Each structure stands twice: as C-alpha cells, then as structure tokens.
C-alpha cells in the first residue's frame, strides 16, 4: 500500500493518490485516445466514462492486454481540461497477478494549466514491458526530466543530426518555396519574398524517433497559417518536399492552427545546413522526421501518400506521445 503525491495540484500539476502496491504511475498529459504510462503495464487506457468518472483498465503481459482506449472526444477539447474527478485503474500486479485497484485523482483546473503549445494533452504510454525479462545488472538512469518526455525518449542537450543522404547546400539566390496541388503551382516565394513574410519566434520541444528529445528549443520561422492563408484548397493531406528529394506526408490540418512553421533561424542564428538550413519545416507535435529539412515546398493532396521514411517502415503519422514510431504501431 502506498500513497503518493504526484506533483501537487496546487503547484499546477496533478495530484495523485494510489491505493495500489504498484506505486509509480506517471500521469502527465491526457487527451482523447489517452494512455497511462506505467512500466508494469502492457497496455492501458480509458475503458469508459460515466458521470464524470472514468474507468481505466490496464493489464500486464500475463493478462490479455485488451482494453478500450479512447477518451470520449466530445469531452476533450484542445488545450482544455477534459476531465475532473477521479480515475479508477484496475491493475494486475505482474509478480502475483492479483487484482488490485488504484485510485488516481487529479483536479481539473490543474490539468488546464499545463502549457502545451499544440494539440491536446496526452497521457503517456510506456508500451508493453515483459517483466520476466529483467536485466539484473541494469539499473538505468532515471531523471525527473525524463518523466516529462514522451514514452521511450531520453533527454539530450546537444542537437544530434540524422538524415538519409548528403546535406544539400542550397544557395539563397536559388532557393524557392512553392505550394502546389500536384499539377499547378499555387504560390511561389523566393528567399527575399519569403523573408518578407511576417515571422514568429517560437520555443518548442523536439522529439526524434531515434529516441532523443530536446526541450525548449528556440526558432524563428513563418507560420504555415501565414503561408497557406490565401490558398484555396479542398485537399486533406500535404506532402512536404525537400532539396535532396526527401519527402514526408502529414494531414493538412497538422500544418494549420499554429502547429507548423517554415523555420530559418535556430537559437538566434541562421539555420545551419546540417540542421536543415536555409529553411526547414518545423512540426514539433510530431516526430522530427516530419519536420522536413531543406524544405522547398508543399504539395496539397486529396489523398494521403507516404513520404520517404513513411514508405520505409516508419509510422504514417508519428505522434510521439502515442509512440507511433514504426508502421504497425497503433
């Protein structure tokens, strides 16, 4: 039996109470399709809702990990608390397979105070863990910072580089950025006209599918809301195109509503070529491969079409909070 407070509601985060012997829930963010993050769980999720109480069922490898996982979407609005009250978890301890129950309570207003730049908030999910595969000599490095990261990520303070081929070096006098619909160019900017667009300074967290996360990175760029402002389209999907022929696909809605930028400065300096300069897409709510380096344009598409990594085994959407790394991940 343990009772634990996880960070205090009064300080602007969640309060937490557990009546379970399993005592280390990590509840950080939540939304529709929410998950609960606990190392002992194979799967978890919201089983149902009634009169302000949500039942959450989770199971361990010994149990069949079958649960309903979706938060009712009508209760969950962007950047708004979607729940207040208590959540009940049923937990099967992996060591003895005894049915246990934990109660987890958090105050609604405190949820709302989480400052997330984009989309809704999430519970994090660790994914399944096989407790019978334990490495006795391994203790790992747990840090409070890691608790704030999407599942399976670790914190880095440097800025690793990853790309599939040589770094293109694009002279500014030949740089251009276009919006097209697959047939016609709808908008075109050269470097000067692009830089004449109003830009924004943003601070965002980056999550790379290769498991590093970097928090609080500072960028300057032009919002896709600005770029797409006068573009009339019925398209639902977008394919970002880069110098060097890299592509990545994403729903057009993920480029809108202050979620995406064409960034040209990082940390106060012009963006270096190895990090995607002169300009890269920045879509921080998705894994970083969606933030196409050396971006040269966006093709609007009525139907989805996989980009480079999406066609090579990586997830089509790539939400780090749902750990959508590889194709086949839910």
């Amino acid at each position: 039996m343990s009772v634990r407070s996880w960070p205090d509601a009064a300080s602007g985060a969640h309060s937490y109470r557990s009546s379970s012997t399993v005592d280390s829930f990590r509840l950080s963010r939540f939304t529709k399709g929410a998950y609960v993050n606990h190392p002992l769980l194979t799967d978890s999720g919201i089983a149902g809702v009634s009169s302000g109480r949500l039942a959450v069922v989770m199971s361990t490898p010994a149990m069949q990990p079958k649960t309903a996982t979706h938060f009712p979407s009508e209760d969950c609005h962007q950047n708004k608390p979607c729940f207040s009250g208590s959540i009940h978890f049923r937990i099967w301890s992996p060591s003895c397979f005894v049915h246990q129950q934990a109660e987890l309570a958090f105050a609604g207003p405190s949820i709302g105070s989480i400052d997330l730049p984009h989309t809704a908030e999430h519970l994090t999910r660790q994914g399944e863990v096989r407790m019978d595969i334990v490495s006795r000599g391994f203790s790992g490095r747990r840090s409070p910072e890691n608790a704030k990261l999407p599942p399976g990520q670790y914190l880095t303070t440097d800025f690793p580089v990853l790309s599939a081929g040589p770094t293109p070096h694009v002279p500014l006098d030949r740089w251009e950025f276009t919006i097209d619909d697959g047939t016609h160019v709808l908008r075109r900017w050269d470097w000067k006209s692009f830089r004449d667009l109003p830009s924004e300074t943003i601070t965002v967290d980056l999550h790379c599918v290769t498991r590093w996360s970097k928090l609080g990175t500072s960028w300057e760029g032009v919002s896709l809301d600005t770029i797409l402002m006068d573009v009339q389209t019925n398209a639902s999907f977008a394919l970002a195109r880069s110098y060097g022929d890299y592509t990545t696909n994403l729903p057009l809605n993920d480029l809108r509503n202050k979620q995406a930028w064409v960034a040209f400065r990082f940390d106060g300096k012009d963006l270096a070529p190895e990090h995607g300069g002169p300009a890269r897409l920045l879509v921080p709510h998705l894994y970083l491969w969606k933030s196409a380096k050396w971006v040269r344009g966006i093709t609007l598409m009525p139907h989805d079409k996989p980009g480079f990594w999406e066609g090579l085994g990586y997830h089509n959407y790539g939400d780090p909070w749902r750990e959508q790394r590889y194709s086949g991940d839910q």
Partner: protein
Amino acid sequence: MWRIGTVVALHDETPTVRTITLEVPDWPGHIAGQHVDVRVTAPDGYSAVRSYSIASPPNSHGRVEITVERLLNGEVSPYLTQEIAAGDRLELRGPIGGWFVWRPEQTEPVQLIAGGSGVVPLMAMIRSRAAARSTAPFRLLYSVREPQATFYRDELRALYDKDRSLGITYAYTRVAPSDWPRPPGRIDASVIASATWPSNLAPTCYVCGPTSFVESATDLLSASGNDRDKIRTERFGSTGERK
C-alpha cells in the same frame, strides 16, 4: 512486437567494444544495414531502449549480432558491454530501416566508408556479400582512431585473404602503425582519390559514422564526382548510440 533474444556468445572487439550474439527463435530475418531496438528492463520495471546496428548477415537461424561501444556516461551501453552474460535475455524489436541497406541482388560497385563504430552496419554488408558469394565489387574505407580501436580486424583480414575483390583501406586519425604510409589524420581528398572507386564506376556509397565524419566524407565523395543520389548515410548522434 518485442521478441526475446538469448545471449549465446560475447566477444570483446576492443577493451570498450563488445559484440553480443543473440539467438532469437522467432526472428523474421533482416537485410544488411538494418538496425534493431534493444530494450533492457531493471528489476523494478524501469526500462530503456536503444537502437543498434545489426552486425550479422542475413541468416535463417535467428542469429542477431550487435556490436556495442561503451560510452562515457552511457545509460545502456555500460550494461551491455560489462554486465551482460551468456544466457541473459534481452528484448528486441525489428529489424528496422529500409534505406541504409545492401541486398545481395545488387551487383554494382559498392563503396563503404566507416567512421569508428559506424563500421558495424557496413560489416553486415560485407558479411552478407560473403555469405551470398556475391561478386559485387566492394571497397571499405575505415577511418579509426588507432589500430587498437579497430573492430573485426582479423575477420576483415581473413575475408580479404579469401577474396581480393574486397578492398580494405584503413585511415588512422590519431595513431598510425609506425610503418604506415600516411601520417594520422582525417580523411581528405587524397584518401578518397586513392581508396575509393572512381566516380565513373557509379558506385553506391554507404557512409556511416558520427555526424561530422559523415558530413565531411559525403562532401568529399560528392566533390570527387559521385552523384549525391548514390550516397546513402547513417549518422550517429553525438550520443554515439546508433541514431
């Protein structure tokens, strides 16, 4: 899907680098150049995952080898290079990656360029070529700090002795053997000119190593006339653990 691999052999490549051979009964097979996610779990349930290049060639008996370099302040690599023992089990997910790969059906000349532990996926390609009795012309340019830091030295030597169509050139960056023709230093245009295929043979180039190494090697390849579309790269973050 996570699979369970049992450690069946351990081999120290250098004092800080260890090759771990795993037996994975339900392994679906892999292609040379792919990588695998490895999950280690502490007794209290805490787990950490890292990606490692697969060093073994494609095979039908579920053997997966990874070669792990111990990193100062690493979280997972000290465990894998010091603590793990035969019989221990690890969880694996993969294989992953479909871009930085070499398939035995490829017949064109291949240029491999490795920086340090970046040799691991390239070794899988060399082993795959040997296992498939491929005659694709292969050259490896292997940049390494000093002779003692070389991975797979004896095996590379044996492969070369059996098959002289596999070219191997070492480039030492800090310490070279006393009789070495070139003083220690980074790969430059003259090394590229002497140790890699002429660009008119249109080799497919695979470059793997730390970011700065890959940046410089790809620029040199490109400057010597190689088509950028023929250059595939895999960069290690500054963390050193693959990608």
